[in-house]
């Protein structure tokens, strides 16, 4: 679809385009910064909790998370207020209306994410007073916070894509690359939410594969559908892998000491996350198969892609988990030598052993993995729908 005739109808076309390009480049930098800073802040904070244990409102990782809210919220506010109060017809014409305000859609999603993060704060505070200072990731206020953080990522994604969709040439290619970078951060964010369920000690059970089927295929499908590069999924899976590997290699260089008891395992430095999931394998498979799937209906593609994802991912991760439990992985590269201060000395995890699986018989295993496959099909369909919509977003 060509946009030329419509845009030509606006008299101050060139100035408008230039002004929009400049303002929005600045905003693109802000939302990209927010996306990276919240992903880094969240992982740093988890490492902080696993090594030092105790933190405060103004701890450095929290500052990074707040910085993300400030960057995304600030950029969103500037864009929304600018388009609502000033900006004239040109700004109105390149924006959408939400609750009486006008602005780019991505800005609204960023603002919504920041607002949700804010709402989670008093809820979380009350939660600690009512039930205790929690030590787990998955609690209702934390999930609200996670949804807020996801909002910031998605807002960044939509905003960058809307820019790409109306840009041309080098700018379009650059924005497409940035889009993939933010897609990688979305993958980092979603795998953080399921981190408790995907520890290597569970990897010979069906639980982690079902959790992954919920979180990962929609991102790969959406980004694959919206990006303009053939190996988009591989690119974001690589971003995710490198991001986590960098944490594994860098975090332990910094000293840290528990400030909470009981200390069940001595800790002298920051404890990094576990080695990333082998998402690169299904990503390669999906990107490779994309040309064959083009032109088919969404459900057909979802069924093929969801199945392919599961068939590629499960055996790879299952075998890789065996490797991670072996002495060969006990080094700084794979990072299975790191245990947080709450790791019981006599626990299975501490001794590189799998938790005995709960699926029962081989039939139970097959059924559990079938559930994972069906989930993957369903979430792939959602991801495809979202990705196809993202291709069309222009404001």
């Amino acid at each position, binding site marked *: 679809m060509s946009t030329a005739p419509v845009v030509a109808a606006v008299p101050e076309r060139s100035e408008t385009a230039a002004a929009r390009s400049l303002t929005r480049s600045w905003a693109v930098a802000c939302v990209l910064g927010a996306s990276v800073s919240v992903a880094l802040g969240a992982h740093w904070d988890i490492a902080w909790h696993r090594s030092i244990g105790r933190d405060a409102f103004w701890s450095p990782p929290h500052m990074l998370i707040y910085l993300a809210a400030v960057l995304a919220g600030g950029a969103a506010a500037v864009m929304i207020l600018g388009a609502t109060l000033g900006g004239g017809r040109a700004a109105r014409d390149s924006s959408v209306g939400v609750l009486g305000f006008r602005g780019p859609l991505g800005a609204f999603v960023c603002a919504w994410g920041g607002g949700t993060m804010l709402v989670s704060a*008093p809820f979380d505070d009350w939660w600690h007073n009512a039930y205790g200072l929690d030590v787990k990731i998955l609690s209702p206020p*934390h999930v609200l916070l*996670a949804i807020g953080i996801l909002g910031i990522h998605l807002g960044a994604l939509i905003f960058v894509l*809307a820019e790409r969709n109306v840009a041309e040439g080098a700018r379009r290619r650059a924005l497409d690359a940035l889009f993939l970078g933010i897609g990688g951060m979305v993958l980092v964010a979603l795998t953080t939410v399921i981190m408790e369920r995907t520890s290597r000690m569970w990897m010979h059970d069906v639980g982690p594969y079902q959790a992954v089927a919920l979180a990962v295929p929609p991102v790969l499908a959406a980004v694959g559908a919206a990006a303009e590069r053939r190996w988009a999924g591989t690119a974001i899976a690589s971003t995710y892998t490198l991001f986590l590997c960098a944490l594994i290699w860098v975090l332990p260089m910094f000293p840290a000491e528990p400030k909470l*008891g009981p200390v069940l395992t001595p800790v002298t430095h920051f404890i990094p996350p576990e080695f990333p999931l082998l998402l690169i394998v299904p990503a390669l498979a999906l990107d490779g198969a994309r040309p064959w799937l083009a032109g088919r209906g969404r459900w057909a593609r979802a069924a093929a892609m969801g199945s392919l994802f599961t068939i590629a991912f499960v055996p790879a991760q299952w075998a890789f988990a065996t490797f991670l439990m072996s002495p060969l992985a006990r080094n700084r590269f794979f990072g299975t030598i790191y245990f947080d201060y709450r790791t019981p000395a006599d626990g299975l995890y501490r001794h590189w052993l799998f938790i005995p699986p709960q699926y029962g018989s081989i039939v139970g295993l097959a059924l559990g993995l079938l559930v994972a496959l069906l989930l993957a099909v369903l979430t792939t369909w959602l991801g495809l729908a979202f990705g196809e919509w993202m291709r069309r977003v222009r404001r």
Partner: protein
Amino acid sequence: MDAAGAALTRGRLASAVCLGLLLAGGGAADAHVGSPDVFHEGVAGPYKVFVTVRPPEVVPGIATVDVRVGEGPEPSEVTIVPTPLVGEGADQAPRPDRATPDPTDRGFFTGRLWIMERGAWRVRVRVTGAAGAGELDVPVTAVALRTRRMGPGLGALLGALVLLLAAALIGIVRAAAGEAQRPPGAPAPDGERRRSRRAATVTSLVSLGLVSLGLVWWRAESSVYALAVYRPMAMTAALSGRQLALGLSDPGREPPPSRGGLRRGWRKLLRRPDDLLPDHGHLMHLFAVRVPQLDAILHLHPERTGPGAFVQTLPAAAPGSYRLFADVVHASGLPETLTAALELPPGGSAPGGDDAVGAAPSGSAGPTAVLADGTRVTWLRDGDGPLPLARALWFRFRVDDRDGRPARDLEPYMGMAGHAVFVARDLSVFAHVHPSGSVPMADLTLANPDAVHAMHAAAGAALRAEVAFPYGFPKPGDYRIFVQVKRAGTIETAAFDATVGPTR
């Protein structure tokens, strides 16, 4: 997402310790009943130290610690650190925290400790100063005492904010389905309105579903936490003639353990009916108080006959309704006070061994108790108004003979210069306190065996005619204080009355 979140607000967290909020229906809180705060006096090397610990009401939570270094060498620094009293992690302390010195009160330090699991803890107080360094270990019990319902104000605010977020989400999706797909400046194509409206409707339904799911999840989490709220073991009391049989059992309210130790704190075995530690040579210290007058008290030591089974031949005492308070300490270090009711018929003979029976006035008791053998026990208190709430106070008593001269024949009673029992008139508070404080001897032995021997030796050396107990009242109201000392082989019991005001 995360533990990140864990944290957005943690720094602002006001201390969870608020004594007045103990749930009346909750009944008990650890070593005593309704009296979770720890008061303990001891020595840290060359320093005499008085420590007050107010455990958190939710676990994990924050305990507050007050340390007063008494007269003697001047302290320059006080550090505090918690470790489990026994078991895993007991030998590996995290980095200690420096307690903050009070700028106006030399020798007074305050600090906050994060207590991460239920159970018996040891707070190690280290004092450094002119005379070098010394350490004192104070046992502290941490159990969840309550969960809390959300107040209407915060509930309404959060509800309104969630509604606003939902409205904004619907607006965003409506725009996403329509206007956002239009090239800049283009007019609305046919069908855009309908598409937008349909997306908004679907989003409304999905938002409603998600919020409902969230509420269901919240309720489920809340009920799991409610299961972790502390309840003492159940105790049954059956009387056959003068023979009292007590049966201990766990009410079985433990939440189910989760796989992989994600809720380790709840997996830890804190107690069984048959894992009791001896305290002053007895597995159980049983107090029976006649209700409602609180005019008779029995201090007994039932014998164990089997797992969770105890028997006691009841001595002669005023017949009537009694409330039983049984102090026990589990191998994990968890101290508990178990309660039951008893109807005592007339009869029986004089108590023997460490057992004692004491009588007290049915009405109000004066500042001096004159006992049957002429012994006079006087409460040496400043003024006679209501006592302050939640503040560590010293309760000093002087024992005089029938001629009014300080008694010279006092002996240790079970290794102590005396025992004191603080009972609220409404029975919502019961605390058994020693001159060293509110910590059960079995826990002190676990924390600090040498210090306990020294304490006993000191008690046996030369007993003065004065005995003092540290304690702080957890809630306002009327209390009766029973004081027990031993004179020339006879256990004497005196009773006093105290009113505690609503202010600190």
